[in-house]
């Protein structure tokens, strides 16, 4: 992962955030991500993110669990070690169902949690820059990636115009890395400007 340069706009209200996101897209800037203190309904739509395929992954994990449980139990009880349990047949499907169900749910749940963590770049000891500490408190933070063609001053003016309460430039690691915020490259050079 490489260090990239961003122009960051901070908003203090959902009502200004939504039109800002919409206009940013319309203006053709590349939104890196939007960091919010709480989940916001419809923001993914506004940002034009595609639907997650987490559920497809979940379905596949569930099928894996189902087949594992079914094949393993039928192999054990018909081929490997047939037992007479209460005179039941060696392939007692109804008796398998609870375990098949459990393994299906287990595989789906654990698999989906791990996949979710991977997609959100979450892991123990791993840090991700979210551009502004108050993104975890009361600010909606929208960084725009600066490319060769981006005019930084123009973006800043655009953000101000869109109702941002705070605009700054920042260089940040885009991926995930092991470490702490204070190790991030010049995370907060200047004293933070806290607007009331």
């Amino acid at each position, binding site marked *: 992962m490489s260090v990239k340069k961003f122009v960051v706009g901070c908003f203090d209200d959902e009502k200004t955030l939504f039109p800002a996101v919409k206009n940013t897209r319309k203006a053709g800037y590349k939104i890196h991500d939007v960091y919010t203190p709480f989940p916001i*309904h*419809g923001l993914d739509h506004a940002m034009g993110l595609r*639907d997650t395929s987490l*559920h497809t992954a979940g*379905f596949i994990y569930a099928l894996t669990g189902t087949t594992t449980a079914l094949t393993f139990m039928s192999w054990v009880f018909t081929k490997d070690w047939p037992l007479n349990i*209460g*005179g*039941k047949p060696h392939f007692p499907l*109804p*008796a398998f*169902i*609870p375990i098949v169900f459990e393994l299906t749910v287990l595989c789906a749940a654990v698999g989906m949690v791990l996949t979710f963590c991977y997609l959100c770049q979450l892991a123990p000891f791993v840090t991700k820059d979210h551009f502004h500490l108050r993104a975890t408190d009361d600010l909606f933070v929208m960084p725009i990636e600066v490319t060769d063609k981006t005019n930084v001053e123009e973006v800043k003016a655009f953000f101000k115009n869109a109702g941002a309460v705070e605009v700054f430039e920042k260089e940040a690691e885009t991926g995930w890395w092991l470490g702490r915020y204070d190790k991030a490259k010049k995370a907060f050079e200047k004293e933070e400007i806290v607007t009331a």
Partner: protein
Amino acid sequence: MALKEQFEIPGGLKKWSYALMGVGVLTLILGVVFLHPFSGGHGEGHGAEAYGATKFWMALMHNSIFWLLVVAASFFFIAATTLAQAGWPLVFRRVPEAISGAMNVLGPIALVILLGYVWVSDDHHIYHWKDVEHVKHDEKLLHKSGFLNPMFYTILSVTAVGLWMWFRHSFRKLSLAEDLAQKGERSFYWKSLAIAAAFLVTYGLTVLSTLPWMWLMSIDAHWYSTMYSWYTFASSWVAGLSLIMLFVVYLKNQGYLEYVNEEHIHDIGKFMFAFSIFWTYLWFSQFMLIWYSNQPEETAYFIDRLGFGGKGEGTFRGIFLLNLIINFLAPLLILMRRGSKRNYTVVTLMAVIIIFGHWLDFYQMITPGPLKELGKESNSLGHFVFSLGVGAGFLGLVIFLTAKYLTKAPLLPKNHPLVKESIIHHT
């Protein structure tokens, strides 16, 4: 834009409901002619002839109980969502309100049929416990006779159905009064909350426990299952949700219910999906425990249905397994995707399948017990078609009554405090 708030019955719907009711009435007349329901089951020997009356009453009971529980389930939907203070169903709440209005007619019909069978008919193949001579020699039925007797049956049935109708009536009255009152008047809201709570207790003590014991489980009077009432409830509830879905989609297609969008359809679809799985959970728990413990007095119920190939055993095997496929596998696989729950065509198709599936479920709950002595004839195609014909009549009646109640009020309860929440609902 003019709001289409007031429902007017389209000619097509009226024609269909009359046609379906016509089929039902015709089937009934044919049934009276060919099955001799009132000539008595005694002393005519055994064989298919003597079972004519049994088949006649069985088809009537099956359909009246099924459709009554289905329309009652839509009031359960209202009560549950009201008590949970759920806002989202409000834009289409007049639909379940109208469907549950069908209780006012289906309730008395079901009572006439059930009490007619218990008090008037000579036949006792459906309820063995009403044959006094037989009960004297039957230790188990004698033991249960404090509970399984015509008097208790009558009192419980009448009280239960009467209470449902009364609660529904009071709720509807408040709902209509709210439309005319000042906006912002909250007393209707709190009163309907109280009614919903009281109804849910009543519903819990009837449909969720005692009533299926009396109406359905006592058909196989020697057998019992603690899952049975929940199972019956789950069956009628998921069919009721599907019926709500059908009417909502129908009205939407006709240009009514302008605030209903796929967010609401998605949520009803989730209910259909979830409770199909809930039904399967109960189906499986009941089956697996009985299968596993393998006690003769318990397995008897499933031998009548699944069977091991003896005489009269397992003639319902096909229906029993089909039941599981269309009520579990189909909803599970088809309704699982988000897109399919938001697709009007798919949910309509699934609603039809689920309603038919649970009608079939009731069929296989009721029919095998009384007819097992008939052997392979017991699930004759003829009886199935007869039940289907009677069922068509009931369906026509439900459509007719729902349409009638829909015309009686605006389709949006516009003064309800949560109506805005419902309009901007977003899943």
